[in-house]
């Protein structure tokens, strides 16, 4: 398939995705009104309420969810100034409480899906049938629902958008303007980190993608540049230490039964959706539906594909698969304290990529036979 035909087909697929979402979303958008968590960031960020942008960094969400000031509170000292900035931008469009508050959500999802296809094409052999299948798997996952329907839940969406932009900006070997591209990538990593705390893995994955070729071999000349990827993390930790008194002040880390308990429940929940996220919370809350078994089966297929490709690597070796699986592991690693499906947007990119890499490896081996 020529590049032109390829992108034409991808565009049609993205358009079809948009139409399929629109079919259900249009009545929702017509009646939309902000609710729940939305009120707090709008009050502190929208133009009509005279916000102080410095507070987006220095206080973050610290004072957002305090309804009972004299009762013992869980900490919510999140620092997400990129999110605040998008709320402010939206308020320039409309000062209301209606559907324009979802502008960033819809635009963000469209851009993220486009970046997803660019990234998948760059990191795999680019077989259309594989990539288009994974676009469908990624685009229609339950992890998007809250980002689509609730204004505030765009934080993890912005995180993955900037993460994908950062990965795409990483220069290939021998490309021009290496320094500029790395600098832009670092900025995007910082934006990812300041959109949502789970973006803490973005610089780590970016460093891994930068230092390893697609076949998993280390590019020795690039190792000396790796310390630069610490910059976003250093910046994040500094902001946390200076203004919030520590890096770990968030309610996700406060669990009555301790870390071991949290590790067991979080990890078991993540294992059930490692490759293709689905709403496991419905099961633990008792709202089990038989169709959820499809979600479990999809993940079993993911495990089977990867195991098959790993056990019979052929001439390609295991490097390519291990590289993607490492990225998936890092993205999942940070989620064990908060294994929500809605936070798996970045992990799902590498879950889908692992499936494509494994399928390509298996199909190559089959062709050879």
């Amino acid at each position, binding site marked *: 398939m020529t590049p032109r035909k390829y992108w034409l087909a991808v565009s049609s697929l993205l358009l079809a995705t948009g139409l399929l979402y629109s079919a259900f979303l249009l009545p929702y958008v017509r009646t939309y009104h902000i609710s729940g968590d939305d009120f707090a960031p709008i009050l502190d960020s929208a133009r*009509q309420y005279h916000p102080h942008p410095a507070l987006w960094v220095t206080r973050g969400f610290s004072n957002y969810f305090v*309804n*009972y000031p*004299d*009762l013992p509170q869980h900490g919510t000292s999140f620092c997400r100034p990129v999110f605040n900035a998008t709320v402010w931008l939206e308020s320039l469009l409309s000062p209301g409480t209606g559907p324009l508050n979802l502008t960033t959500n819809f635009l963000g999802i469209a851009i993220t899906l486009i970046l997803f296809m660019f990234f998948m094409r760059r990191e795999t052999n680019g077989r259309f049938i594989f990539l288009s299948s994974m676009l469908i*798997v990624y685009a229609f996952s339950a992890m998007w629902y809250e980002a689509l329907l609730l204004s505030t839940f765009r934080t993890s969406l912005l995180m993955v958008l900037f993460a994908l932009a950062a990965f795409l900006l990483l220069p290939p070997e021998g490309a021009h303007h290496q320094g500029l591209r790395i600098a832009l990538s670092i900025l995007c990593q910082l934006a990812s980190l300041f959109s949502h705390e789970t973006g803490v893995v973005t610089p780590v994955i970016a460093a891994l993608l930068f230092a390893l070729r697609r076949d998993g071999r280390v590019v020795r000349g690039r190792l000396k540049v790796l310390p630069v990827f610490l910059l976003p993390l250093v910046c994040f930790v500094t902001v946390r230490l200076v203004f919030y008194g520590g890096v770990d002040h968030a309610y996700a880390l406060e669990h009555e039964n301790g870390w071991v308990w949290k590790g067991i429940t979080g990890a078991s929940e993540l294992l059930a959706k490692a490759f293709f996220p689905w709403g496991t919370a419905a099961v*633990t809350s008792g709202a089990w539906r038989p169709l959820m078994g499809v979600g479990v089966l999809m993940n079993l297929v993911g495990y089977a*594909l990867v195991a098959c490709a790993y056990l019979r690597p052929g001439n390609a070796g295991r490097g390519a698969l291990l590289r993607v699986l490492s990225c998936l592991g890092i993205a999942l690693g940070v989620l064990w304290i908060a294994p929500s499906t809605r936070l798996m947007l970045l992990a799902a990119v590498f879950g889908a990529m692992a499936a494509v890499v494994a399928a390509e490896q298996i199909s190559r081996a089959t062709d050879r036979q």
Partner: protein
Amino acid sequence: MLAGLASARLVIYLTGFPQTVRQYEAGNRLARVEYEGLQKAIATSSAPTLLLVNDRVGLAASQAMLRMAAWPNNGHVRRLIIVDSLGGQSGPQSSLRVSRGDREVRIEIVAGQDQRFVFAQVDASRLRGELVNQGLHYQIETVPEYSLAARVLRRLSKKVQPDQIAIVGRLVVTVPPEIGRSGLQIVGFDPRDMSSFSNDLTRSAHPRLCGPTRPVDGVPSPKEDVLLLSSDSAVTRSP
């Protein structure tokens, strides 16, 4: 195989997403009713203190919601206080009773079977017995609850603590005279049919009804203006 995964995903999406959207759509209607009701109540209030009872949509950000609703009219109402939030659907067994004695105002809420009080972001493990918040006195009944995973682990080890605290049963909030005496506006939702109400308990012995009730969660439409003020200034729902 990957095409099969895509088909499976589409099946999940087509069967799950429309249902999710419908649920959130109902939330939109509720949010509009509560927010616009608050705006109206604050704009017409003559009392300096407003209490929000059984908030339905603000939850973790209900204080911010109140401040937003008061933004253009925050000259008169000086104190905005969240009493509680309430999750769940209409509960015929539930009740709300606001009564005014000689000195203090007493709000008693009994949650229905499928309802629960929500104190978002408050450490639930320390929410029990009697508490004071913003001058209001709370009497709270709680029961420990175990999630599915906690129940499994509890079979293996008895040291597993309840990972959820449910505030069910009865919540009694007493507004002391120093807050109530200068005038009190109470707005919120009746847990029985989730219709909204608004009451201005001024210093006079004859409180007035400020706003019509509106059903919000798809339950059969309740009668208009069913909020009654009894002779002893008790504010209750008609049976």
